[in-house]
């Protein structure tokens, strides 16, 4: 099970399709291509022929040739739905053959709100895993659009495996108050593009410690969840800490304060070949201080030569409107082919003689000695850090008797957060620079590190 991060030639290219629906959807696709080429198929679906013509997507589907005759829907979701229904054949053939489909749309308008649920459902019916990334309209767009968006969102939630929902209002923080509406939209698109790229990287990039789509699903689990997404990238001295800092400052992150309430946090660290495990470790420590005791950190690290010298940190989680439910989602009916079975490799770079504490036992996990652990096994392995203990639990559930019985009934049980509440070991070091309090235990209240000057924290808002 242990493949090496260097042999990227044998990359198992998972085919991913990103489907942009409506004007907002295709804008995001354009931005995705513009900013950084990604190795995915882009499909643009729109009713408006003009907008479709200017799209850079590789595949284009015109919706509702007969219904709208190449014009837009005029903000009517019913028309959008009819258009999609009419072009169901075209959509189906465009979706053909991809095991993983991302559907991107801006809700509120006609095409986005009307066609998206249908496209999601069609993709789902073809056995694909569907991740929907949608935006809710700004509040200045009016109540009607908001209502249309919410109705559509409900339907999408029903069909998609996971939904990342961006509330545009929360993104307005990134654009200066003086900036125009245009810029506010552009920022929203940009952030969404960043999120898609991060998710694609997550699934495609060969990882030192691999995260799969299943992890993403559990990070986003929960109905009516508010999505927390943060991305940061930095280089130079202390790059790990500043990348994390940036990620926490992302507008959808609320300064990282909600992190101590969520059940699952997905963290992916990407870096060039010079990414060190020490960096990964310090970064994870810093993050684990911000999360609650019951929070499960789904952790991945990936190497991408493109990132040389830089470190990127992606944080994805969801904050339930209700208190976080520890029980896993009742099994979504879709089969989970191949993807859940992705190898979860934990490879230590051969050159480094240094093995940080948490990674020490991460030798090839293959023939795990069936250690005679008592029933309480999941708890008793808790002291090692997260990636290890997840691997542990997989091994146990596949080979163990008693402990497997504890975790097996859950869907994708080995990854379910419920069985082993791991108390976070109090990490002695925080990574943000804190002046004279650099050494010593940080004072963290409500998820905020009080040792960092108040003026730095308050002014950002």
């Amino acid at each position: 099970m242990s493949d090496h991060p260097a042999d990227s030639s044998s990359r198992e290219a998972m085919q991913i399709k990103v489907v942009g629906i409506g004007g907002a959807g295709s804008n995001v696709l354009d931005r995705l291509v513009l900013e950084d080429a990604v190795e995915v198929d882009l499909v643009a679906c729109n009713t408006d022929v003009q907008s479709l013509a200017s799209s850079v997507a590789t595949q284009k589907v015109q919706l509702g040739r007969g219904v709208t005759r190449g014009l837009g829907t005029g903000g009517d979701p019913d028309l959008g739905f009819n258009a999609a229904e009419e072009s169901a054949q075209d959509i189906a053939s465009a979706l053909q053959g991809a095991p993983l489909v991302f559907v991107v749309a801006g809700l509120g308008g006609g095409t986005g709100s009307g066609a998206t649920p249908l496209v999601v459902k069609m993709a789902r019916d073809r056995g694909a895993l569907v991740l929907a990334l949608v935006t809710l309209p700004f509040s200045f767009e009016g109540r009607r659009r908001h209502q249309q968006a919410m109705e559509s969102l409900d339907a999408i939630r029903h069909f998609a495996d996971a939904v990342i929902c961006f509330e545009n209002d929360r993104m307005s923080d990134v654009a200066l108050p003086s900036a125009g509406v245009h810029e506010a939209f552009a920022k929203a698109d940009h952030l969404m593009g960043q999120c898609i790229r991060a998710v694609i990287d997550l699934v495609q990039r060969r990882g030192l410690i691999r995260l799969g789509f299943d992890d993403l699903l559990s990070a986003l689990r929960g109905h009516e969840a508010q999505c927390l997404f943060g991305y940061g990238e930095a280089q130079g001295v202390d790059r790990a800490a500043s990348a994390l800092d940036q990620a926490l400052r992302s507008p959808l992150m609320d300064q990282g304060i909600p992190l101590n309430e969520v059940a699952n946090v997905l963290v992916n660290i990407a870096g060039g070949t010079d990414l060190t495990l020490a960096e990964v470790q310090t970064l994870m420590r810093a993050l684990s201080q911000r999360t609650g005791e019951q929070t499960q950190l789904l952790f991945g690290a990936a190497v991408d030569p493109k990132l040389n010298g830089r470190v990127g940190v992606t944080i994805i989680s969801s904050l339930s409107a209700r208190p976080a439910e520890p029980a896993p989602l009742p099994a979504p009916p879709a089969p989970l082919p191949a993807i859940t079975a992705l190898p979860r490799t934990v490879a230590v770079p051969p050159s480094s003689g240094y093995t940080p504490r948490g990674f020490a036992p991460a030798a090839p996990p293959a023939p795990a000695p069936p250690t005679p652990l008592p029933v309480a096994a999941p708890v008793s392995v808790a002291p090692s850090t997260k990636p290890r203990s997840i691997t542990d639990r997989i091994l146990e559930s596949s080979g163990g008797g008693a402990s497997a019985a504890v975790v097996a009934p859950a869907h994708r049980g080995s990854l379910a957060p419920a069985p082993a509440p791991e108390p976070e070991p109090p990490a002695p070091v925080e990574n943000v620079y804190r002046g004279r309090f650099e050494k010593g235990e940080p004072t963290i209240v409500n998820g905020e590190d009080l040792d960092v000057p108040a003026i730095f924290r308050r002014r950002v808002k």
Partner: protein
Amino acid sequence: MAKSNVVVGLDIGTTKVCVAVAEVEADEEPRLLCIGQAETHGVRKGEITDFEAARESVRSAISDAESKSDLEIRSAFVSLTGGHLSSLNNRGVVELPDGREEITDADLEEARSRGRQVSIPATNTFLHTLVRQYRVDGRDGVVDPVGIIGTRLEADFHIMHGVVTRVQNTVKLVKDVPLAIDEVVVASLASALGALDESQRDRGVLLLDIGGGTTDYIIYRDGAVAQSGCLGVGGDHVTNDISMGLRIPIARAERLKVDEGSAVLGTCLPDERIHLRAEPGFGAREIEREMLHQIIHFRLREMFELLKERFDAERHLPYLGAGIVLTGGASQTSGIQHLAEDVFGLPVTPANPPSVSGLSGAVTNPQLATVLGLIEYARVTSGARPTGGLLFKMKSAFGRLFGRR
């Protein structure tokens, strides 16, 4: 100790170790003999980070006090602070057996032990169990229930607790000096004794002891402790913020804070600048005064807001007739009263100097509130400690303040 009625208070603060030596008689005000001080090293946010350095700091403060008072110090009352301290209120209930109606000492003891049957984290230990009030048959405000006729005795307690290992660190440090420990007293309680008078406690008051590394708080209502605790933020944080915000050395930031700092905004001219003179290793610079004030303002405002959150959770603030009293070194920051008034919406006053004779010039310094409170603690408990019928009245009078441990 040379004389049996000489007591020593030892307050190991984040910036200073203070030692107070005083003669106490139960019924008289303490006579302060001397104050010994030394700069602290190895303590951050009220907790020991460098054992050796901290011990040396305590030693030099003790020897300072010894040389000033010409006494040999063998034991001390020691204050305890740190963000790990917390508190809760609980009630102990005793039903009197049939046929007996007069409440006795034993019932009181029983109520007390039941009051302590609360779950605190396994890592924590009880530090003080203070009686807030007694109720007999549902009647509030009984000061001393012994001898009263009733069938049901309830006792409300305020319980302070802290993490065992952190408490042990302080104890070990003092024992290593070496000094014997008369008693360990939570700093907020000591400060309250040093900085509040009885009328304030009766009317209801919040005391904020804003020290170097921590802010200890305690709320009194109707003369009894209602809430107490500690936030690990203090004057050191302000200094650190200034140092980081203006990019100047810590020592320079500390002086700038003391000389020019203010917690309120908009008190200076636009573009008013402060000239920092050149020093070895530091070139001359000018900084904006408003920037300095902003840094201090944001820090202290945040601190007050965090505290207010804690107080709001227990709803005592609207009932504090005597408002808020500030003490501790950082309470000398200019404008801090206005800021506190703004955040809490209550009148804010600086602490009254405690009533001591002797070296009374020292007592106006708010940095000494805790250590003087330790002396006061020693005085009131000295009356209460010997168990005898004669002193019983004394005990009940102060029982409301402390409750014996």
